[in-house]
C-alpha cells in the first residue's frame, strides 16, 4: 500500500469516528455532566443542575443540602446560597441566573422564581404563594374545585401537596407583539391553569396567560417574534411530540411527531435552522414502552413506566427528520447543546 493510500485510509477512519451532526465545539449538557455529541462523558460535577462559564467557573445546585453554589476554576467555593432549585437553571442575556425555586407552607409547595446575579445576590423574585389570590382569580377561576394536588416528587423537600408545578423558565429573547416584551420570562406551568405564563421583566406580575390544549408539557421557549416551542408529554391518546405554537393565531403552527415517549419529563432545543435536539425516555432495554398500556393508564402505571425509562437524545433536522439517536443508561430530564470549550479548557475538573 502506498503512503498516499495509507493517508487516505487514515483520514477516512478519523472522518468516520466523528460523525457529529453539528459544530464540534458544541457539547451535550446533561445537568452537571458534560458529554461529547456521541454521548461519551467528558466531565462531571457534584449537583443536579449546573451552569458553566468561559473562565472555568460554574454554578451548581446541591439537592441534598439544598445549596446553590458558585465554584471557581479550581473548584473552590466562591459563594453559597441556601435555596431549593428545581427543573433547571438558565442564564439571561445579562448573565444572571434564572432559577425555579419553591416555598413550602403547611405542607403545600408553591413555586418561586428568582433572578440572581453571579455574586450570589438575589435581584428579583416572584412568588406564586404571595400572588396566590391573583393567580386563582385571573387564571383558574373556571375550575369547579381548586384543591392542592397530592404529590411529593422531590425527596429532598418536605411537602405533600402543591398548587403549581413550574417546569421551566426562560427569558424571552425578542419582543413578541401582543404577547410579551423582550426580557420578560416565559413560564411552563403545569397543574391548574395548564399553559404558558408571561412574567413581567420587573418580576412584579403575570402579564399574559396562554392556555394550551395539551396534557403535561415541558420546556416552553420563545423561538421568534410570534412562536413558542415546547415538548408535549405522552398522554392517553398520543405519544409525546414537539409543538410550535403561534401566539398571534392562538394555534399550533407545526408539530414534530417522531414516536417520542416521556410521561413526566422531556425537552426540546432549537439549536439552529438545521438542528433540533429532543430529550425523551426509553426503557433501559432499548424499547419504547407499549402504547397499548396507555388504554388503561392510571397514575400508578404511569409512574411505574416512568421508572423504567431512561434517556434518549434525538438529533433532528430543521424539517424534523431523525439524524441520530443516543441512548443513555441514566435518567436526566433535559439535554442541551452548548459551547463549553473555554470552560473545559480552564476548569480543573473533579
Amino acid at each position, binding site marked *: *500500500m*502506498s*503512503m498516499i493510500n*495509507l493517508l487516505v485510509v*487514515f483520514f477516512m477512519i478519523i472522518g468516520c469516528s466523528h460523525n457529529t451532526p453539528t459544530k464540534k465545539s458544541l457539547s451535550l449538557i446533561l445537568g*452537571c*455532566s458534560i458529554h461529547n455529541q456521541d454521548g*461519551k*462523558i*467528558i*466531565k*462531571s*460535577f*457534584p*449537583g*443536579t443542575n449546573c451552569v458553566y462559564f468561559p473562565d472555568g467557573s460554574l454554578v451548581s445546585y*446541591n*439537592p*441534598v443540602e439544598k445549596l446553590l453554589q458558585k465554584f471557581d476554576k*479550581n*473548584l*473552590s*467555593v466562591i459563594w453559597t446560597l441556601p435555596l431549593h432549585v428545581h427543573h433547571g437553571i438558565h442564564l439571561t442575556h445579562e448573565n444572571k441566573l434564572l432559577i425555579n425555586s419553591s416555598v413550602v407552607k403547611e405542607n403545600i409547595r408553591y413555586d418561586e422564581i428568582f433572578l440572581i446575579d453571579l455574586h450570589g445576590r438575589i435581584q428579583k423574585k416572584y412568588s406564586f404563594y404571595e400572588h396566590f389570590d391573583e393567580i386563582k382569580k385571573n387564571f383558574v377561576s373556571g375550575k369547579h374545585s381548586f384543591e392542592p394536588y397530592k404529590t411529593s416528587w422531590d*425527596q429532598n423537600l418536605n411537602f405533600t401537596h402543591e398548587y403549581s408545578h413550574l417546569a421551566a423558565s426562560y427569558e424571552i429573547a425578542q419582543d413578541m407583539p401582543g404577547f410579551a416584551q423582550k426580557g420578560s420570562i416565559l413560564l411552563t406551568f403545569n397543574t391548574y391553569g395548564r399553559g404558558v405564563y408571561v412574567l413581567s421583566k420587573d418580576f412584579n406580575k403575570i402579564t399574559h396567560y396562554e392556555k394550551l390544549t395539551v396534557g403535561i408539557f415541558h420546556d416552553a421557549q420563545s423561538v421568534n417574534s410570534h412562536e413558542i416551542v415546547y415538548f408535549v408529554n405522552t398522554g392517553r391518546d398520543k405519544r409525546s411530540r414537539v409543538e410550535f405554537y403561534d401566539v398571534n393565531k392562538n394555534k399550533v403552527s407545526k408539530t414534530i411527531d417522531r414516536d417520542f415517549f416521556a410521561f413526566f419529563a422531556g425537552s426540546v432545543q432549537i439549536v439552529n435552522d438545521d438542528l433540533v435536539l429532543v430529550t425523551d425516555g426509553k426503557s433501559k432495554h432499548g424499547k419504547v414502552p407499549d402504547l397499548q398500556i396507555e388504554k388503561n393508564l392510571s397514575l400508578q402505571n404511569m409512574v411505574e413506566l416512568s421508572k423504567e425509562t431512561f434517556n434518549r437524545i434525538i438529533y433532528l433536522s430543521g424539517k424534523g427528520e431523525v439524524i441520530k439517536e443516543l441512548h443513555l*443508561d*441514566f*435518567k436526566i430530564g433535559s439535554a442541551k447543546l452548548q459551547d463549553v470549550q473555554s470552560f473545559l479548557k480552564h476548569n*480543573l475538573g*473533579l
Partner: protein
Amino acid sequence: MEKLFLVALILTSFNACTSLKNIDNNRLINFKNGTVMKMEFSDHQKARTYAMERRLLILRKFEVMIEPYFGTANAQSCQSNLSSDLLKSNKSTLTALLQLPVSGEEHVIHDCLVENNTHWVNIELLVCDKNFYDIRQYSPIKSKPDYKDKFTCP
C-alpha cells in the same frame, strides 16, 4: 518507511490518550498509569482547606450519584464502592485517601455502580506545607487495587 509511519501514527495516538500531567516534584513524575496535580498556596492553612474542600466535593459527588438508586438494592452496593479515609494529619502535612469507580478514558466520577464504570481510581490528597497534590492511580474495573496511602511529603 510505511511501517515507520504506521508506528509513529500509533505512538502519537497512544500518547494523546495517556498523557500525564507533569509536576515539579521529580519524585512523583515517574508515577505509572496515573495523574498528578500540584497546586501551591500562599500558606499551609489555605492548602489544607483546599484539600478538605476537594475531598468533600468528591464525597458529595458520590452522594448525588447514589441518589437515583435510593430505596433499591443498588443503593447498598453503591455505598460499598466508596472507601474514604483521612489518614494522617499533623501541623504541616495532611493525607486523605479515596477509592471509587470511574468511567471512560477521561476517568470521570459519574456513576456509583461498578457495572457502569471502566476503572477504579485511588485518589491521594496530600498537603505538604504550602503545596497540595492530587495523585491518582487507575486500575481496570476487574482488578480492584489495594487501598492504602503511598506517598509521603519530601
